Every structure is written in structure tokens, then in C-alpha cells.
């Protein structure tokens, strides 16, 4: 009986590894690459024990870092690298694992392919087992690669590096198992991802309140102390979480009907029998199909933005004397430590919104691949008109999301401090970023018009390179002049804004959108 429930697992494992080989390789490379990158950049930045002591004191004074990463307990270079990289590695392996498990469980079910697989000689538990087995294998590869790279590259002790890698691998697998459970509970893939990522974000709650409970993910990386007293039991904590979550996912999977979930489908299966007069053009259609998503993003950004804005008051009082803040204050044209930190956070929000802009800009591609574009264009709708609806959304979405973030964070900061100044400052800062977000969206759309099959990889690569440039410039790897050529540079909080840059990016956006329209009008439709 047990054997029957797992029949076909091996074949499915090979299939998953084959189907997503590029993505799995990127996951392993990124998971192992970040700690190595940190080892080199922190080694260059903090070569001496004294520098690291100062850095540790400064980090303790940085509330965001203190919340997310906790205090530095081991000020050796290895210790600082492990401290800095632990959460990163957990998030890389964990988010990749969540996306991967949902993609191969609920998304397959949504698409009707799970049914085709289930009709074969494949056991009830096989698909879920196969996904989790591949996830665990990739994470083990991350652990092995991390240990080897840290030992061979910067010459860290192999044992500690292996423990560090194993902790991240176990943590990532536990988050993937949470994704697997969410995929069993939710009735759509989108809801499953939201549920899993949302639960991960919510688990940070106690840390903001000042506690560090060890069963929660953000504390897992801190349990091992790989380069100090090396607690080899530490990976067992996330491993136990992984086992419990995976068992729960299997239990739900074994009891439910195919296509069902425990949580109801938000939209329901019925609706109006006729269209309202408003639903009569490509723009109304685009809003109808993706508007809900934009509204929920805006709501989430408003809540998080307001929370961060309100926190800035307490920073004024607590961290005014902190070394890090004083250094940041020197570089930022900010009035108070709170303003400085808020500016840094706002920039991070802007980068997140840039990524969301890419998602919106790739919507016409998805519509074309699903055959929806063909259905509309076979009616009396011209190509420029259809594309214009999506161009408009691609421009309006980042502008609206940035405005909401600026308004919510600025208003909350103003209310909390009793000063009016943060509101216009935040609105200006987020508005300042709009041309940068437009540029990444326009790049995606231009490539979509020219070579639709390349649009998604090109757009994400452009975003990744632009974001990486920030890190490289901050680590003094690339010169300021090179950084200034990337779209996010001029909005960086430590760079004095020059009005020419946003203007140039706006013009570039217009040019790219013209390219998108003319090329889309001339080419064959995909499906």
C-alpha cells in the first residue's frame, strides 16, 4: 500500500529536474554565491578586528538590522559573514522552494496537467514527494557548494562552512514544505504563493516586537553559530519544521478531491450572467483581469509603508547616537536619523515596486501566450489599441504604487513625529523614482514587441543587473560613473538628485514604448 502511494516518484523527480533545470541551477548558484560574495565584500570592507567591532556596535544600533539579523555574537570575519548571510541564504532557498513547490503542485492542478499525471500509474503521494525530494536535493547541493566555495575561496574552515550551508538548506526546505502545505490548502496557485510568503512575512512579527523565538524561521540561521561553538544540532530545528509541514501537506493531499482546497476560491465559480456596460474595451478588460492584483499590492505597500514610516520616530530617540546612523547622516541629505533610515527603506520599497512593474509589463506576453490577445485582435480591435491598454497599465501601476507608498509612509511618519516635513519628503522621494520604474517596464515591453520569447528573461536580467549595480557600487567594486549609467542610481538616497536624469529616463521610456508599439504592430502573433 505504501509502495503504491509513491509509485512513479522516481520518474517524476527526473521530469521535474529536467523541466526546470535552468531555474534549479540558478537557485543553487544564487544560494551558494551570496555567502561567497559577502565573504569577499565584507573581507574588503572590514579587514581588521577593530573595524568589525565598530561595525558590530553600529549594527546593534541599526533597528532594521537588529530586528532581522539580531546582534553579532561572533566578530571574527567568518562570524560576521555567517551573520550577514544566514537570512539571505534562508530567503533565497526558501522563496525559490516555495515558488518551485507551488509551481509543480497547485499550478499543475490549475492547468489540468495534474489530472493527466494522476491518471497514469502514479501514486497519490508521488507528485508531492517528488517536488519535496527535488527541493531537498537542490538545497543539499547549495549546502555542499557553499561549504566548498567558502573553504576553497576565502579559506573559511570547512566544518563551520558546511554547518552554515546545512542550516540554510534545512531552513529553505522547511519553507518549501510550507509552500507545499499552502498549495494543498489554497485553491489557486496565486493564493498559495501569497499564503506561504505572507506567513513567512507574518512570522517576522515577534522579532519587530523585540522577541527572538527560536522556532520561527528568522531565528534559525542564528542557532548554528557555525564558526564559534558550532552547534551541529541546529539544522534539526528547521528539519523538524520541514517534516511536520510536509506531513501535514501529505495528509491534506491524501484526503481532498483533485481540484479542491480547504480555503474557498475568493472569486467563486459563478458571477454576473451579462457584462456591465463598462466591460467593453481592451483597457476595461486589462483592468478586470489584473486590477485586483494591483489593488492588493497597493494595500500591502500602504500597510508596510505606514508601519515603517511610524517606526521612524522611535529611531530618532533610540539611535541618534548610533555610529552607523551618524555616518549615514553624513552621506544622506537627511535631517534626523529617522529621516535617514526612512530614506533607505523607501529606496528598498522603490526597488520592490520596480520588480512589480516588470510583472505588470509582462502581462501582455502572458495574454498573448494564453491566446487571449488573439481573441481580442480577431475582433475589431487594432493592435496599437490593444497594446496601448497594457502600456497605460504598465505606466500607471508603478506611479500609483509609488504614490501610495510615499503617501502612507510620509503620513505615518508625519503623524508619529508631529512634523509635517516627512510627508512632502516621502512623496517627492517616491515620485522621483517613477521614471526609473517606467524604464524597466519599458525595456520589458520593447523586447516583448520585438522578440516576445525573450521578453521575460531580458526584463528580469535588466532588473537584476540594475539592482546588482547598487550593491557593487556600495561595495566600491564599480565606480560611481558606471553606477550612474544604471536606472536606479540617480534615486539612490546618498546621491544628490539631478533633474536631467529622470527627464532622460522619461524620454527613454517614451522611445522604448514607441519601439514596442511599432514592432508589435508588425509582427506575427504567437498564438
Amino acid at each position, binding site marked *: 500500500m505504501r509502495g503504491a502511494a509513491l509509485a512513479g516518484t522516481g520518474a517524476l523527480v527526473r521530469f521535474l529536474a529536467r523541466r526546470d533545470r535552468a531555474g534549479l541551477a540558478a537557485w543553487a548558484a544564487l544560494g551558494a554565491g551570496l555567502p561567497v560574495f559577502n565573504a569577499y565584500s565584507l573581507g574588503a570592507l572590514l579587514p581588521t578586528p577593530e573595524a568589525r567591532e565598530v561595525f558590530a556596535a553600529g549594527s546593534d544600533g541599526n533597528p532594521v538590522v537588529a530586528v532581522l539579523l539580531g546582534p553579532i555574537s561572533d566578530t571574527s570575519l567568518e562570524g560576521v559573514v555567517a551573520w550577514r548571510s544566514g537570512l539571505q541564504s534562508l530567503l533565497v532557498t526558501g522563496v525559490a522552494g516555495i515558488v518551485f513547490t507551488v509551481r509543480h503542485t497547485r499550478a499543475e492542478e490549475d492547468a489540468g496537467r495534474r489530472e493527466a499525471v494522476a491518471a497514469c500509474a502514479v501514486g497519490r503521494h508521488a507528485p508531492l514527494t517528488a517536488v519535496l525530494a527535488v527541493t531537498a536535493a537542490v538545497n543539499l547541493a547549495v549546502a555542499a557548494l557553499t561549504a566548498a566555495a567558502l573553504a576553497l575561496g576565502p579559506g573559511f574552515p570547512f566544518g563551520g562552512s558546511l554547518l552554515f550551508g546545512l542550516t540554510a538548506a534545512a531552513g529553505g526546505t522547511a519553507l518549501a514544505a510550507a509552500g507545499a502545505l499552502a498549495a494543498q490548502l489554497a485553491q489557486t496557485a496565486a493564493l498559495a504563493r501569497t499564503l506561504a510568503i505572507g506567513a513567512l512575512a507574518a512570522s517576522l512579527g515577534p522579532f519587530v516586537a523585540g522577541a527572538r523565538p527560536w522556532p520561527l524561521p528568522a531565528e534559525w540561521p542564528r542557532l548554528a553559530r557555525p564558526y564559534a561553538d558550532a552547534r551541529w544540532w541546529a539544522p534539526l530545528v528547521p528539519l523538524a519544521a520541514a517534516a511536520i509541514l510536509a506531513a501535514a501537506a501529505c495528509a491534506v493531499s491524501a484526503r481532498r478531491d483533485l481540484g479542491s482546497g480547504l480555503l474557498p476560491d475568493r472569486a467563486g465559480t*459563478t458571477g454576473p450572467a451579462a*457584462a456591465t456596460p463598462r466591460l467593453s474595451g481592451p483597457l476595461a*478588460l486589462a483592468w478586470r483581469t489584473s486590477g485586483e492584483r494591483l489593488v492588493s499590492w497597493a494595500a500591502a505597500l500602504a500597510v508596510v509603508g505606514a508601519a515603517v514610516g511610524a517606526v521612524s520616530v522611535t529611531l530618532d530617540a533610540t539611535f541618534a547616537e548610533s555610529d552607523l546612523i551618524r555616518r549615514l547622516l553624513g552621506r544622506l541629505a537627511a535631517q534626523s536619523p529617522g529621516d535617514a533610515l526612512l530614506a533607505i527603506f523607501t529606496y528598498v520599497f522603490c526597488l520592490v515596486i520596480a520588480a512589480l512593474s516588470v510583472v505588470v509589463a509582462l502581462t501582455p506576453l502572458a495574454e498573448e501566450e494564453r*491566446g487571449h490577445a*488573439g481573441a481580442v485582435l*480577431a475582433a*475589431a480591435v487594432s493592435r496599437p489599441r490593444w497594446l496601448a491598454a497594457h502600456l497605460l497599465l504598465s505606466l500607471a501601476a508603478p506611479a500609483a504604487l509609488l504614490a501610495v507608498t510615499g503617501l502612507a509612509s510620509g503620513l505615518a511618519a508625519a503623524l508619529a513625529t508631529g512634523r509635517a516635513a516627512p510627508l512632502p519628503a516621502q512623496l517627492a522621494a517616491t515620485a522621483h523614482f517613477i521614471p526609473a520604474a517606467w524604464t524597466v517596464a519599458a525595456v520589458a515591453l520593447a523586447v516583448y514587441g520585438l522578440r516576445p520569447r525573450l521578453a521575460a528573461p531580458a526584463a528580469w536580467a535588466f532588473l537584476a543587473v540594475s539592482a546588482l549595480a547598487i550593491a557593487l557600487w556600495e561595495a566600491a567594486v564599480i565606480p560611481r560613473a558606471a553606477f550612474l549609467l544604471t536606472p536606479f542610481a540617480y534615486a539612490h538616497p546618498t546621491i544628490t538628485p539631478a533633474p536631467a536624469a529622470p527627464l532622460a529616463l522619461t524620454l527613454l521610456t517614451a522611445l522604448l514604448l514607441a519601439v514596442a508599439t511599432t514592432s508589435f504592430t508588425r509582427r506575427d502573433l504567437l498564438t
Partner: protein
Amino acid sequence: MATVISAAGLVKTFGRTRALDGLDLEVAAGEIHGYLGPNGAGKTTTLRVLLGLIRPDGGRVRLLGGDPWRDAVALHRRLAYVAGDVALWPGLTGGETIDLLGRLRGGLDRRRRDELVERFGLDPSKRARAYSKGNRQKVALVSALSSRAELLLLDEPTTGLDPLMEVEFRRCLAERAREGVTVLLSSHVLAEVEALCDRVSIVRAGRVVESGRLADLRRLTRTTITADLDAPPPDLAAEPGVHALRADGPRVTLQADRSRLGPILARLAAAGVRDLTARPPTLEDLFLRHYTPPADAAGAAAAAPPADAAAKAAPSADAGPPADVGSSADAARSAGAAPPVGGRESRTERS
């Protein structure tokens, strides 16, 4: 009669695949034109060219007096299309989708829309993701049939419909045709085409290999005769006009050229007829003739390949007539010159 669709020498390649290879197609105003061919023959590609969704690499094409690529929007106001693979927005209900597509086309007949929803037994308040394949097809059909279009482009429109709904579809299409609507019906449901269509075009490997009125195509081909005889006549195979002869004891099955029917029947009568059926060629006979490679026809093939595979495997070894078929007269001539074997008969021969 005015020509609604006119394509000549259409060529479209996708990478190394030549989807359309000098395709000619004429559809006259007011007719229901059957467009037949196996999967991969180029039917959908033709329709996508006619809709201006893709641009041909060569050839000439006119639709309703305009250029499908350049005048797409103006032309699409006058036509309605049902895709072979109906793609609906999962979050929209069937009713919303029907209305939306109708509005995007430039309006739909409200009363007819409600009537068709009723006739097809469609629940318009369900979201598209909850529909079965047949119901998705109904959404697309109701939307297209309730338009005020003068041309309907239908790509395998009855896939997934149950037999009752298929009958309803035929009725609706006949009604539209009586109103003067022109229909290009791509299909491989031969009974449907036989029941509905005035003229048919058969496409193979990107070319139309046969085109004309169904009655004309029939007249120029052979009648299948099955007879139970007292004693099978000797050397019947040598009789002029007899093809694909198969003798099974006292029972003979053969195909007879229409011009030689009299003498052949006389030979059979002389052998003492106990029972006899004569059957005109079905559309299936006409269709399969173009998809049976010579090896199969000779009975030498080890296994009968599926029609489309055969067409791909032996694109040059043409069992059918030459493909430069412009008019129905040409088609008829070449049909008469075709090799004398029907695919179905050749298969029974081996079994």
C-alpha cells in the same frame, strides 16, 4: 457571385516548417464552405492569415474586398471568428465573455444572444475556469453566432460539443446561411461538412488539393458496388472501369467508374445477382484518397499510417492529383485522373 475570400499562392513558414505551401482558396458570398484537412495541414494557419494575426511570406489574399493585414479592424467588424482552441479569461463568466467579445466586434444582437444561450443550454453565470471544454466552445459559438457578421470563420467549432448540441449548431448555421451569411467551416467532422456545406476545399501539407461542389466531386469519382453472386465471374478485374476488386467467396466488392457502370452491372447480372448495393462515394472516400500514400494503396505497406503522418512522411509521393488546382473545373479534372484506390478499401483488403 461575389468572392468573399480569395487567396492565391499563400506561403507561410515557421522556422523549417512550411505551414502554407502555395495555398489557393476561393469562397463565394453566401456559401458554406467546408475546409477539410487533418491536423497540421495548415487549416488554422490559413484562418490566422485571413484574420491578419500573422502575415504570409508570399502570395495574395483578399477578404471581403480588403487586405486582412492592413484593414484588419474594418474587416473584423464584418466577421466573427471561433478559434479551434478557445481561450477564455478564467475570471470572467461566460455571459461576460460573450458580451465583451461582441462589443469588441462592434455590437451583438441582444435578442439572438439570449435565444442562443437558451438553445445551447449554456449557464452564462459560470466563470470560464469552471466550464468544461464543450461549454467553453458554446461560449465562443454563441458570441460569434449572435454577431451581425456577414462572414463567419469557424475553426473546428464543434469539438467537445455533445451530439444534441452539434445538431443545434447545424441548425443555427443553416439559419445564418439563409440570411446570406458566408461561412468558412474548418472541420474534420466529415458528416457535419457533408450535411452543411455547398462547396469544400481539401487541404494537404499547406496546399488545397481538391476544391469544388460536393456533387461535382462525387460525379467524377467512383461508385462502390457490393454484390452477392451465384458464381463470381472470371477476370472481372480485367473489365475496364473496375478498380479495387475484392472477392470473398460469392461476395465481390469493387469500385466502378461511372462511365462504365452499365457494362459492369451487365457482367454482374450475368453472374446471377442475389443481392446488390451501390453507394456513391462519401466525403470520407474523397478525403481519404488524398491522404493515402501509393505504398498503402498498393497494399504493400506493413501498417496503415494515420492520414496526417502519411501526408508528412511522403509529401512528394503524391497519391492525389497535382496541387495546382485553381478552379473547381481543374479540381474535377484532376480528381478524375487520380489513382484508382480508396484508402478505406485498401485497408480492408489487407485485413
